[in-house]
């Protein structure tokens, strides 16, 4: 790790901020690891009565959303702010669809008459509930990053807010993939 005298060089400062944000995201994986551990403690490997098709659709939506969100950074590097804004809207729409589909599954499970306290459903509601919370925060960050970009204007050298929001959104997508693997596949 290079040590700078004065350490005010923007690229260096950015590296620090980026590393810190990465450590933050890494620490948040612990949250999911903990709940996944609880899942195996409570429900072992059992897969609950939730829709496999819906789960697959949500996964596809989230992967697409994260990929689109990441391309918004490329748009900024190309100096095209309106493309950045447009792609973020697409990413948000895909993410919102995934979010609503999870809620739909919740409603469906509540309507199915199966007790919420069945071990598989307990862990389903808990794990997806946590994910919904992170998705909500991620969506807020994307909206904020988009608004900021349109108001202040990102440049290829300076668009950390967008970068952070897309990193977080990627984390949300990866978290969903982990949730999907644990709840639907394993």
């Amino acid at each position, binding site marked *: 790790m290079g040590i700078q005298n004065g350490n005010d060089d923007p690229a260096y400062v950015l590296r*620090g901020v980026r590393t810190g944000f990465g450590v933050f995201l890494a620490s*948040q994986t612990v949250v999911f690891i903990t709940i996944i551990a609880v899942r195996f403690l409570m429900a072992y490997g059992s897969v609950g009565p939730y829709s496999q098709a819906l789960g697959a659709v949500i996964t596809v939506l989230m992967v697409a959303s994260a990929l689109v969100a990441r391309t918004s950074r490329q748009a900024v590097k190309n100096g095209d702010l309106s493309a950045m804004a447009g792609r973020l809207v697409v990413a948000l729409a895909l993410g919102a669809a995934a979010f609503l589909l999870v809620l739909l599954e919740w409603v469906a499970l509540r309507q199915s008459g199966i007790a919420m306290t069945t071990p598989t459903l*307990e862990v389903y509601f808990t794990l997806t509930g946590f994910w919904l919370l992170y998705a909500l925060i991620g969506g807020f960050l994307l909206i*904020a990053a988009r608004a*900021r970009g349109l108001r*202040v204007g990102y440049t290829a050298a300076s668009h950390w807010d967008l970068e952070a929001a897309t990193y977080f959104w990627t984390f949300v997508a990866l978290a969903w993939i982990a949730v999907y693997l644990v709840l639907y596949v394993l």
Partner: protein
Amino acid sequence: MAQRQAQVPSPPELRAKARRPMVPVFRAVLWATIGFVVINAMAAWLDPSPNSPYLPAVGAVAGWFGGLIGWLLGIGGYEHVIRPMFGHPAPVSHSTGWRQYFDFSTNHKVIGTQYLIFSTATFFWAGLIAMAMRFQLMSWRPTIFQYPQNYLNAVGIHGTLMMFTVATVAMIGGLGNYMVPLMIGARETVFPKASGLSIWLVPIGVMTVTMSPLLGNWTTGWRGYEPLAASDGNGMLFYYLGVFALTTSSLIVSLNLTTTIIFKRTKGMTWNRLPIFVWGILTVSLLNIIWLPEIQAAFIISLLDKLIPFNFFNALGQPLGYAELFWLFGHPEVYIVVVPALAMWNELLPVFTRKSLFARPMAVLGLVFVMMLSGMVWAHHMFTNMRFSEMLPFSFFTEMISIPTGFAYLAAIGTLWKSRLRLTTPALLVLMSMFNFLIGGLTGLFLADVPANLQLHDTFFVVGHFHYTIIGGMVFSWMAAMYYWLPKFTGRTYSEFWGKLGAIWVFITFNLTFSNFFILGLRGMNRWVSSYPHYLMSENFWTSIYAFLLGAGFLLNLVHILWAWNAGPKVKENPWEAKTLEWHTSSPPPAKNFDVLPEVVGSFYVYGDQVPEPVAAASQIGGRAPSV
């Protein structure tokens, strides 16, 4: 997010923003109240139940989050974080003077001081609760706590506040925030805004835990054991939420300080030259980053267990699952408490012995290995309910962790030998801390031994053991650090007479109080009881008397430090002739810490007549960096 402010100059707007309509704390209280009431009402509307009280469990939890958000926005999060995130310019003006301590700040020294204020206030508040508990225990039958649940509430609040607001905060959020940037030659931290908000999670957490009995008694103590927690009163919910706020605060501190230590070191501050205290903060920060999210997740799951209610941790689920999750965090937690203290010893001893730090690599390795082993010992809190096959490995790792812990003693003893020890108050407190922690550590040998543990577990022997490690190890070191850095904080110093008197008073009364705990435990005094068999009464009575004297001793030190802070005699810039960087600037340090960033050219821990100064800036600018 939004670490750099928007570069849009709009002076009139800025000036308009500079005049806030209300003092931040009052605005925060108002917004928090609005947040709480609105979200509570929404929850009550969405989840109506017949005959529900105004504050149903779901409403209390949802409302709390509304209150939390209102509080953080009101304290300054709205202008300083949320609006800049959307591209609006952040206000450039900050409060000055005493007002800045009641406001959102990005200055790590102000934030560190705020942490110290809240930690100290909470230490005395939770200490007062301990005094009430000791008053109850003077008699074998109820006196001031008419019902055991009231007493157990007090136990839980005392433990929770002491752990999450004092033991893991004072030396990390407080001294760490204040001193780490100074000690590594940085002008600010990497995440000043997050840090400025994180401190304001502390009062919310303290208030939440303190007020929790209003929602209903909870009787689990600070560990919140399931399934009791799920069937206990709704105050349990505020325990989870209060701890959530406090741990989030510590998590932000750790993220900020870790990144700062990695990226903000001045020229020449290599890993080999990093001060021991900074190593201590770095290792505990890593522990925080790993384990705080774990306990937060476990607590939210427990909260759902109680609120929905799910069956995770009751007879239908895994009652011991919670205990595993809790101690998986809970044991690293005690190293989060004590590692900064161990680091503090070896930070201070070379200064006061005028002798090179002995076996410095061992001292650092000790801290790192303690950190790495601390995640492998948790189940030694569960010897009375685990499988036989698990007893051997967990007792093994538990014994082994005393080896790296011993390295702190190795370095300290090697440094003391043939030194020129200046027995000032901080040095005395470090030696006392070493003595106390020695007893705490050696009694740990007995608890790590499974056959003996099966008798000692859940008795006052354990209570004595961890008070020896936490008060004896951490609080004494914290006091040493406060006396040591007092000239740095204020440019003033304390009275050596009153400092020594305070130290000796606290040392004697502490040992009288808590050595009795061991005997009480061996005689069959179990934990979490407000009433006990009559034969234990006279020993408990005297333990309480010593405890009151101990409380008075802490108060004496507080009054003395406050006096010295405001009116102590002025002192020269570097009264201890210490070598680390925080002494290479004026006292108190200017807003940006250093006018000229110092360059490190040698070790801070090498003493001797021929040894050159470890800091180059001194020679370049003729003596110390000029103060502003």
